[in-house]
């Protein structure tokens, strides 16, 4: 009975489609009804209103007189400003820890294993809060700043580095100096930024370490023995045999980890680092446009996720090709 068979295929799909549509319509209907009933305005027009609030740190010029969409843009830039360095740092640190867990010497192996087992079993939020508390409570005030390296200052107000900058047409290196309430000159990294960066880096690093370890362990014993047999030294074995083979096993889960890291950066809202979620949250409170603000946050993260997935796939293809050649 071909007709009956086709019906069997089509009907459940039609029912599903209708059910999903009905559910969405129902939600939409309720939202409109609720908004109208309570006299709440809706729509994305508020994005062009002046924001009215300042943002503590931003990559480009922003002040409270600018429209809200600029505030969202600043927030997104702040998300990337912390997520990208965290990706780089966690990859380096993670690879080191991963290699450390495979070291032949028991002490570094134990250190790395302890680190992994400790950090990955504690919620990131808690690590972030701890990190922030440590930075703001335990560091000295500007008047008693620590100088970890010449030209840098570390205080409750953050880390200050010498920086290249232009002021009133004159460009040059400026060095941080304790002055007035805080530190002036140079580049400053706020404690909120540092807390998020450190917590994200370490938390992601231990997961990356496990990926790296798994990748290296996936390389068959025979390959390594063969490489050693032809006289390669341990580092050469790692560089020319293990790494290229392991990379193929490492890259896909690594991409996932990068995605997680970007999403996890949203926890920064808990310590007041003004990234996207924090800015959206502030806007939500100032304008009452809950629906619109949450939609914007989700859309930006989805776009970032897609972009990351795309880049990882591209790189993956490259690695895979080289590996099979």
């Amino acid at each position, binding site marked *: 009975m071909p007709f009956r068979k086709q019906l069997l*295929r089509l009907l*459940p*799909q*039609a029912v*599903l*489609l209708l059910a*999903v549509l009905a559910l969405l319509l129902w*939600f939409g209907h*309720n*939202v409109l*009804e*609720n*908004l109208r*009933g309570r006299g709440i305005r809706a729509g994305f027009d508020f994005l062009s209103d002046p924001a009215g609030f300042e943002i503590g740190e931003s990559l480009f010029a922003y002040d409270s007189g600018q429209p809200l969409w600029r505030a969202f843009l600043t927030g997104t830039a702040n998300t990337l400003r912390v997520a990208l360095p965290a990706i780089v740092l966690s990859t380096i640190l993670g690879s080191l820890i991963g*290699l450390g867990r*495979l*070291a*032949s*010497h028991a*002490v*570094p192996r134990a*250190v790395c294993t302890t680190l992994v*087992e*400790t950090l*990955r*079993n*504690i*919620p*990131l*939020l*808690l*690590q972030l*809060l*701890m990190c922030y*508390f440590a930075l703001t*409570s335990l560091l000295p005030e500007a008047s008693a700043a620590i100088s970890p390296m010449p030209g840098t200052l570390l205080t409750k107000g953050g880390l200050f580095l010498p920086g290249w900058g232009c002021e009133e047409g004159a460009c040059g290196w400026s060095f941080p100096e304790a002055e007035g309430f805080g530190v002036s000159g140079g580049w400053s990294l706020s404690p909120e930024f540092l807390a998020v960066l450190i917590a994200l880096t370490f938390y992601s690093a231990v997961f990356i370490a496990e990926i790296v370890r798994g990748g*290296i*362990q996936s390389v068959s014993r025979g390959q*390594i023995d063969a490489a050693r047999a032809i006289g390669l030294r*341990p580092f050469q074995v*790692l560089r020319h045999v*293990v790494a290229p083979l392991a990379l193929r096993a490492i890259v896909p889960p690594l991409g996932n980890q990068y*995605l997680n890291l970007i*999403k*996890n950066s*949203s*926890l920064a*809202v*808990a310590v007041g680092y003004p990234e996207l*979620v924090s800015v959206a*949250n502030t806007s*939500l409170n100032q304008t009452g446009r*809950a*629906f619109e603000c*949450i939609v914007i*946050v*989700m859309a930006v*993260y*989805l776009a970032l*996720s897609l972009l990351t997935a795309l880049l990882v796939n591209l790189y993956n293809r490259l690695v895979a090709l080289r590996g099979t050649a």
Partner: protein
Amino acid sequence: MIRMPRKRTLLWSLLVALLLWPVINWGLLHAVWTPDLEACRAARGLGACWGVIAEKHRVLFFGRYPYAEQWRPLLATAIIVGLLAAACRPRFRNPGFAGVAGLGLLLAVLLMAGGFAGLSAVPTKLWGGLPLTLLVSLGGTLLAFPLAVLLALARRSSLPMLRLSATLYIELVRGVPLISLLFMAAFLFPLMLPPDWRPDILPRVILTIAGFAAAYLAEVIRGGLQAVPPGQYVAALAIGLTRWQAMRHVVLPQALRHALPALVNSFIGIFKDSSLISIVSLHELTGALSIALGGDADWRSFYLEAYLFIALIYWCFCFALSRASRQLEQPRPASG
């Protein structure tokens, strides 16, 4: 694996000792163990003040739950921990146990809620601390599970509409941070329901976590499904089972067994993620900490010790579970 020279033991040990010494010094040797504020202040900077835990442990564990009634969340916690411990033992892995576990969880919830048999009713907004963490993560996982199985099957279905919906859902949820979904539960759900429906924030949050977890679990289960050789399914059809029977009795049990360690790992993830609900003002373990210390000027300086204590609780649970998951990876005796 990669050989390294073995001569640096002394150097390594020295380095580790040098790093560990201040920690031991601060955390053990110079620590204050009694809830003595003066002693704690005197030791500040030199030693830890573990007295803060002794002083505040009731709030840390149970949040704002009425003081006199706190034996109830204690008992609920004990039930849930007992169930978790039992679930890790292979001999309890059967459908009968699932029923017992469901009943146990229900008992724990009823115990917390009260309103019967002389127990006073305690509204969910007063729930907090460890029992809330456990309820949210366990409840979220249990609710997520059936949805995840359906999503995984749908994503492998031959019906394009079904496949598309499941894929869309999974990828959308996996693409956004949990926090944005929690904000949705807090701010948007009430708007999306008719004006006279007013679900409490706790079920809203648990459902959100379930929906979030389901997307991740579905991928784990899909991996498990892929690990079942297609011949199994064909063979099941050949002996006269219908498609659903084949799925239900042949493919799914094997797929879930393959996926079991990954499922436990997902649960660990949800357990850790449950700390995020403190951002929407549910005072689970992390949130209870800020109730305990935030409003107390005297003890507020000893946040670090309290953080470390909470971290230890999370660590114990996660570590024990991850050990259990590693045991599950070992091949089972040929009985099931």
